[in-house]
């Protein structure tokens, strides 16, 4: 199984400029582990000290906020497109 992950510009300094990648992760937790394996040091920007996904990091799966899909319990499906958006603004 494979999902595609889009890395926004502000996070690319932790990925050596990589903007898009494929991952075999089946959950958010596995995705963070996969990313840390490829880009050591990135995980601490995605998870806080308590191991929780940082409150201001937004994760979308096929344009849907992952929190509407069950958050960390969501199981990725073949071909899912994952988008990371640091700190949503607006309002």
């Amino acid at each position, binding site marked *: 199984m494979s999902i595609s992950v889009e890395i926004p510009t502000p996070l690319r300094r932790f990925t050596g400029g990589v903007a898009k990648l494929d991952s075999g992760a089946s959950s958010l937790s596995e995705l963070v582990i996969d990313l840390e394996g490829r880009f050591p040091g990135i995980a601490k920007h995605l998870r806080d000290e308590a191991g929780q996904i*940082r409150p*201001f990091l937004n994760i979308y799966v096929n344009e849907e906020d992952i929190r509407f899909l069950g958050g960390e319990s969501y199981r990725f499906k073949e071909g899912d497109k994952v988008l990371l958006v640091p*700190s949503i*603004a*607006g*309002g």
Partner: protein
Amino acid sequence: MGERYELRCRECGARLGNQPRSFCEECLSPLEITYDYEAIRPALTRASIELGPPSIWRYRALLPIPDDDQPGFPVGFTPLVNAPHLGKRLGVRNLYVKNDAVCFPTLSFKDRVVAVALNAAKHFGFEVVSCSSTGNLANATAAQAARQGFQAWIFVPADIEQAKIIGTQIYGARLVRIAGNYDQVNRLCTQIVEKLRWGFVNVNLRPYYAEGSKTVGFEIAEQLGWRLPDNVVVPMAGGALITKIRKAFDELISLGLVEEKPVRFFGAQATGCSPITTAVKGNQERFEPQKPTTIARSIAIGNPADGYYAIRAIRSSGGWAEDVSDTELVRGIELLAESEGIFTETAGGVTTAVTRKLIQQGRIGPDETTVLCITGNGLKTTDALANTIKIPEAIAPRMTDFEAYVDRVAETEVASTVRAAGASR
């Protein structure tokens, strides 16, 4: 830019100078403006503020504006009116309305934040300004961009009120309607800002922009005679306004401009989009995002950027948060109009109806000083009243027709008033 202020991460405390950026690269948390209060303190007194212009610029020492800058429009300094009739209807004695339904130039509190944001846009050298908006911000950005010579690109959910669409395009702004809700518009804008060198007032300029909301708090305190109220009721969309009114009060206290006292902050949302009130009522520190279903479109943000901080401001102040149905909010619009002659938009209906609820719950006491923040104008959301306000029939310009008309409406209060007046002559 000046050294009186700079960006600081709200969580890790990193300082980032002044630049168009809204979040910390290390911990992804939002940035906000911090000031060198010791440098500000000596020159800032009640008298020096009172000598300033009747606009938000009288508080410029506490805004991220360079000292030598010439501000644009005379925005803000809207009336704080006492509301004895509304108070009587709700059973309280010291009620005030901060009336940003008449804010200049586009009749909402968003004029304040845009004024500060465009100033930052100018200093960062942007030629195009932009925003993601539910309508009021669109109007404010388009109008002030026109006056200050910026090109404006405005992104809105496709279903916003017609008056807010017209009230954007009239200024020559490019309006982009997105087939989606506000949170989706907002996400798109977060992506656009990475690609284009545009000044998005509520994305990359957001820390500067949000400081403009403090002026609501400064004005409330000054207009109450340099004292703080007991309670403030604030509508919540992204959640920034309530946190910035709190920051304003804290700054006035720490600079010795008002006496320290506890102020309780009450947040208001529509039940159809209530991530913040749901969290407060459920004793949660973090909110769960929602998909909005309410006619209060101007505050329909399901993933509020400052939701976390709004929850904290409310809980730590001893306040509370409530939400009301669309039916209740329409009743709130009518109540404020009928009792105080102020016609507010749907968000103001929410604030009024929530205030009623909080008083009924005993959370706001009858002798406490309470300020309702009315943030927008009813003429922009008349769609919401289509089922409430019926256009009266036309009658011929003849006395007999008028008398027949009076007979037809004889059961109403108006008719009995007319009869009583006639009988007394």
